[in-house]
């Protein structure tokens, strides 16, 4: 699963590691995992990984910083809910695709400022998406089918007659969708258009001079990214939480996804998974450790506060020590024994 930004040509079988992971995920984990593992760890991990993947295409590859990811998660979740609810007999898969398209369209609209704005200014303008979408979904009860609490319930997950029920079923549902999009992203970043994204990120003027359609490339980045994040929103709502309200898609969630790609590694496919794993597992570890050492003092309030503090410290540490994220840490660790042996042979 090496990407274009990986330093050197990968080994002979770059697909062998991802294939092993996939084989384990499909062939081993469903049989040995507990429902806690699926419901509290793996399913949210998959949904957040997909969201990270989507944002990474926009921010990591195309260089357009966005703080509105949660808005596109929400559009995906509420979009799929409404398509499924209001169009009788619409297959779930079509609802999901339509939800992705809705997110992509809204992404393009809120991507328009990127044609004139860069960096921080663009990031601020993407906040508009964050606030507008959350406001619209709360304000107009139609979106949540006039549910008094604004909460929506996920429909049963059935695709091509296969029912994905229970913890394992929902995990497999999420896994399949994430696999498809990861494959797409991995292909995409190595296509000509994928390289255009990187070119626009690295030097917009040079990109323009050699004839890359810069404006179209940026809008395409917003569209693809928002589509993927939208589908991640469907997973978050339908496979993980099952009941969602707009409050769950707030600015905190947007930042969480930004953290995922920074910690995991910008402009890498694996980075989104590394980052999401850390974000999901880290609070659980912290909570266990807290319980172990501090006992009852370590209640949920303390947990949340300490989570933020430690996470914040971790991000600062990362930006200083390993700005290329967990991915490059991982690659270095893997190469270290190799490098030592090489030094020996030289000596």
């Amino acid at each position, binding site marked *: 699963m090496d990407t*274009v930004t990986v*330093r050197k*040509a990968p080994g002979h079988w770059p697909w062998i590691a991802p294939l092993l992971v996939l084989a384990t995920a499909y062939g081993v984990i469903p049989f040995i995992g507990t429902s806690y593992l699926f419901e509290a760890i793996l399913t949210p991990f998959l949904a957040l990984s997909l969201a990270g993947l989507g944002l990474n295409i926009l921010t990591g590859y195309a260089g357009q910083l966005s703080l509105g990811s949660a808005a596109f998660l929400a559009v995906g979740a509420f979009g799929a809910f409404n398509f499924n609810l209001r169009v009788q007999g619409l297959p779930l898969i079509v609802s999901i695709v339509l939800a992705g398209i809705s997110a992509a369209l809204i992404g393009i609209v809120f991507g328009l400022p990127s044609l004139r704005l860069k960096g921080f200014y663009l990031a601020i303008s993407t906040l508009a998406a964050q606030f507008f979408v959350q406001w619209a979904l709360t304000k107009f009860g139609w979106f949540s089918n006039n549910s008094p609490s604004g909460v929506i319930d996920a429909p049963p997950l059935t695709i091509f007659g296969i029912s994905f029920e229970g913890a394992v079923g929902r995990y497999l549902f999420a896994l399949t969708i994430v696999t498809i999009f990861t494959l797409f992203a991995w292909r995409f970043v190595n296509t*000509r258009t994928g390289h255009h994204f990187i*070119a626009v990120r690295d*030097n917009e003027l040079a*990109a323009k*001079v*050699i*004839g890359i359609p810069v404006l179209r490339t940026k809008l395409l980045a917003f569209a693809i990214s928002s589509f993927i994040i939208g589908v991640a929103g469907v997973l978050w709502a339908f496979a993980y939480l099952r009941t969602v309200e707009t409050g769950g898609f707030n600015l905190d969630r947007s930042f969480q996804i930004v953290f995922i790609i920074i910690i995991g590694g910008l402009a890498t496919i694996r980075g989104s998974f590394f980052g999401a794993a850390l974000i999901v597992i880290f609070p659980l570890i912290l909570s266990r450790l807290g319980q172990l050492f501090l006992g009852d003092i370590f209640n949920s309030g303390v947990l949340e506060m300490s989570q933020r503090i430690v996470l914040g410290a971790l991000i600062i540490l990362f930006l200083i020590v390993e700005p290329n994220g967990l991915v490059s840490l991982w690659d270095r660790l893997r190469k270290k024994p190799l490098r030592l042996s090489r030094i020996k042979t030289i000596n």
Partner: protein
Amino acid sequence: MNQYFYPRSELRATIANLPIHAERNSGLSSVREHEKGNSRQSGALALSGISLSFGGVTALSEIDLNIVSGEIRSIIGPNGAGKSSLINIISGVYRPDSGHIRINGHTYQKVPTHQLARLGIARTFQNLALFKGLSVLDNVKISRVHHSRATFLEQITGLGRARREETDSLNRSNAIIDFLDLGDVRHSLAGTLSYGLQKRVELARALVAEPKILLLDEPMAGMTPADKQDLTGFIRAARDQFGTTVVLIEHDIGVVMGLSDRIAVLDYGRKIADGTPAEVRSNQAVIDAYMGIDHEENPTGGSN
């Protein structure tokens, strides 16, 4: 041509002992005569009455410049003379206050930057402008963008036109990379290369687009003498082999005198001289403008 394809260290050692013009005609004579021949008469690029000012400060005033197909045309002048502004006007980065630009028979008030490649113009930048996150090969390959027609779907699936175009641009890019002796760093990330190599990758990226006109904005800035020697050879080889018209901005008078067919001299935004290296060197206005600056190397040898 062979002497440009040694390993760099060797090349440096060899070339340090060579007189500046030793490499001049050493085998680089495989000119595409048909390309050079029939376009000699017509101007590839013409500027007329170009003026540009920034907030009241005049950068260029009433510049006329006629660049003939297949020539290496240098633009020199002291710092702030307006050389880079001129390149930026030709490439559409700046819009001139007055005057117009004529490229292959089309006249423009402002050159449309996004169509530059289609117009057959490629440029390099004074400061490095590579795509750091892409490999050398991908940096070069991407410049074939205006030759690509494959749709998004074809690209993702790798079918149809996408595959053909990919093979074609891969072959052409590899040829240019070999031509510029960049084979060893083909798969390295552009951002990790030395300054001199990055400059050379920029040249490769510009050349692979098969431009009719190549704009080089201080390609030798900050280079070691050995690097300069390499690049001089590559620029001349590019012209001789591909028939490319070259517009060169350069500070190194030695390089300019040796490489150029004609030289235009700017000073304070005005063109003070325009002619062959020999003419320019004996021009009193040029000597005045350069008085006290031109002490590094004694420009030798005329030009054709």
